[in-house]
């Protein structure tokens, strides 16, 4: 008989990462990418994926050196008390802003695409209440939940992308490099923060069953997520062409409205529940991470009890922008730019400090 210890295994971990980061293709991330890279957005995401390897590799290296320590303890150890706390506080702020923006966007998607008459605050409250319920159950439960529905979500996504490809024109991806290779490389690096979630993922290192597994899980999920996003970006361009796709805020939801399945003309409600499930996973996990960071920063041992109040706070913050479709869109782009250096520099800084302290041997 096994007494569970709140640890999660590789497959649950991969399931969480794929669902949380993979869900980005369904929000306005594609819109941001299309705006910059036109039809070469899919290449940009691959560039982003490749460049993300560096900070992630450094992070993993640091974590390998300090087994049994989580991000909070490592930052405090390597950067010293006052500066370390400052960095962690910045991370907490970034995380909180990210979750507020994201949840606001997703609520906006539900509100504008599916439930136009329901008040935003109600939709928001349901989203956060469900996620708070899930997050409070603990990481192991979020992992199990993610794993048990992963297959169904991916099947529905596969069907959606397949239909999109069938009904689109693959010729639309040409010219292959969009506005040019320089643009892709440069823009790709400055938008690296799309993969910044991986930095936050390291918060749960101590909950992984073992380090080798964790490393494997990170690489596997980075590959899957990058490929998945790239395919989706190609699919949207193939369906809409590059000019119209720029005008769409939420290409995924427009796409599933556009496609049809034989005798069923409108099948978006077929994909909607699966997308929602991914959404619930995503925000349960983010809530858990923020609570974990918050608890670590302010030395609160039973941080699970923070989750309901944090969720309430995010709802209140998230309903402030009156027209999220536009305001958040314009807020998010600079935010991604600000986060990018943090995502690039913090791992480097940690690695260098660790090197100086002589803990890492190459």
């Amino acid at each position, binding site marked *: *008989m096994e007494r569970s210890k709140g640890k999660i295994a590789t497959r*649950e971990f991969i399931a969480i990462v794929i669902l949380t980061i993979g869900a980005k293709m369904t929000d306005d991330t594609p819109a941001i990418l299309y705006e910059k890279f036109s039809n070469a957005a899919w290449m940009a995401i691959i560039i982003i994926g490749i460049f993300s390897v560096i900070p992630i590799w450094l992070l993993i290296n640091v974590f390998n050196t300090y087994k049994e320590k989580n991000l909070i303890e490592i930052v405090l150890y390597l950067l010293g008390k006052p500066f370390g706390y400052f960095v962690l506080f910045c991370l907490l702020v970034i995380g909180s802003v990210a979750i507020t923006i994201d949840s606001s966007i997703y609520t906006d998607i539900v509100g504008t695409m*599916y439930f136009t008459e329901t008040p935003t605050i*109600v939709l928001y409250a*349901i989203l956060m209440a469900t996620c708070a319920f899930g997050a409070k*159950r603990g990481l192991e439960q979020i992992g199990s939940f993610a*794993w*048990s529905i992963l297959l169904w979500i991916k099947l529905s996504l596969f069907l959606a992308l397949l239909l999109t490809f069938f009904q689109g024109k693959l010729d639309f991806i040409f010219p292959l490099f969009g506005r040019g290779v320089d643009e892709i490389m440069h823009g790709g690096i400055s938008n690296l923060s799309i993969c910044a979630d991986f930095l936050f993922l390291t918060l749960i290192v101590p909950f992984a069953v073992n380090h080798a597994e964790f490393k494997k899980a990170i690489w596997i999920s980075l590959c899957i997520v990058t490929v998945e996003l790239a395919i989706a970006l190609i699919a949207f361009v193939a369906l809409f062409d590059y000019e119209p796709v720029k005008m769409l805020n939420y290409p995924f939801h427009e796409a599933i409205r556009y496609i049809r399945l034989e005798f069923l003309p409108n099948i978006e409600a077929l994909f909607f529940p699966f997308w*929602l499930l991914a959404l*619930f996973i995503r925000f349960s996990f983010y809530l858990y991470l923020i609570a974990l960071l918050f608890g670590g920063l302010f030395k609160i041992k039973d941080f699970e009890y923070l989750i309901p109040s944090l969720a309430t706070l995010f709802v209140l913050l998230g309903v402030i922008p009156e027209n999220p479709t536009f305001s958040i869109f314009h807020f998010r782009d600079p935010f991604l730019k600000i986060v990018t250096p943090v995502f690039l520099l913090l791992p480097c800084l940690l690695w260098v400090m660790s090197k100086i302290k002589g803990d890492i041997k190459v």
Partner: protein
Amino acid sequence: MYSLLKKMINRKQQAPTPFIEKSSKEDITLKKQCITDKLNKTVDIFSHIYSVGKNNDVIFRKFHVQALKKDAALLFINTITDTDHIEEYILKSIQQYSGTSQKVEDIVTTPGIKKVQVIEDVIIEINKGNAALFIDGESVAYILSVSNFQGRGIEKAENEVVVKGPKEAFNEKANTNISLIRKKIKTESLVVESVTVSKRSKNEVYILYLKDIVNEELLSDVKERLCMSDVDSIQNLSMLEQRIEDSTKSLFPTILYTERPDRASSFLEDGYIVLLMDNSPASLVLPATFWSFFHTSEDHYLRFLYGNFTRALRLLAMFITLLISALYIAITNYHAEMLPPDLLLAISSTREIVAFPAVVEVFLMEFAFELIKEAGLRVPSPIGPTIGIVGALILGQAAVQANLVSPIVVIVVALGGLTSFAIGDLALNFAVRLSRFFLIISASLFGLYGLTAMFSIGLFYLVSLRSFGVPYLAPMTPKYTSGKDTLFRRLIFHEMFRPGYLKPQDMKKAGEVSDGKKQG
């Protein structure tokens, strides 16, 4: 106003009056004493305890033992003893004894005999249907096993019916049930321990396990929980289940209740623990995961493909039961554009003349269906067919003709109700039927959004459930080495391991056989 309210509350608080209880201290001290060597005194004590004379079936038979040249008395309750045995093995053999031995063990010929000194212990044995033999001048009682409780014989399983496979079911005698299990597991490592779980009725629970497979920690946890209850009586396993399960208010069951000895034995062989009790035509299997409720024994008796086909059907049935009414409400009220136009028009034309909103319609029919189910279960069998007629004609056809509900709602609810019968396990059936109502309510409030949110909450709840420390969805998630028998089962040759979440002492239950080899 406020003070009035306060007064009312205060009045309520004053209400409790002390119970008037009679002290049984005297009786308890009496029962703790040892038996004296004076036969007359012993007879008096036991006559007092058992109210002999008033108590119709308690027999105190006094006689003279020629071989010992002493007076003796035999005490037993004749409704729970085998009187033929008493006559044959005790009374006759004592009277006809011609040997020289002075030992009671040599004179009496019953198979089981033991000596007991404390009055309390004698009482326990007599209450179990044994006879107590007191002999003048000896300060012990000889307990002779002659018990014979009345009960029915072994019959066919009624609730877990299989087409292919053993038909016999447990009955209300624990001894018979143990014998049925021993018939299937012929090994000396099968241990049957007994624990007394109640104080007044002295109900006994039999703990069955394979001592070289079961996890010791699990076993001691189970024993601890069994001993925890401080209660006068626990009549049967259904009552026991509620006392030892992990979360009593949980919607989903965490202990399996099965009436099939073959099922109980196969769980035993996998390292689970089985509980048996008198008066229960079933066994409790623990720990239980979601899959143990979802499976039936026939899944394994049928060939690989047939078995998995029934599993697929059952899974589909479970989701239909759970979701169909809720989906109907969500789609017709919130996502009507999803339906093909022709179907939408067909639905709306039948709904045109119905006075109620779709939600009320569905609730009305669901409620009616649940009523038919419950009433059909309780109705005396001679008037059973009436229920069918009433259900089908009045609630189905007439309700539609009276424009109370639309025909499509009847179809939806009937389909949901029908598929719910595909879930064989009673507890899981209840869990699914009840959670359906939560889903219907959330779907009627927020369409697919509410439905999915409620479903997620349910799934979160499900994955956080534990049965004796075992995660509810194991071994699917979290992963454990096992026979991988979850939604679908594997080929029987590939089920090589016992479930890893039980931490059995011996993991492997079969050797490797390659496909080529077994096909010969």
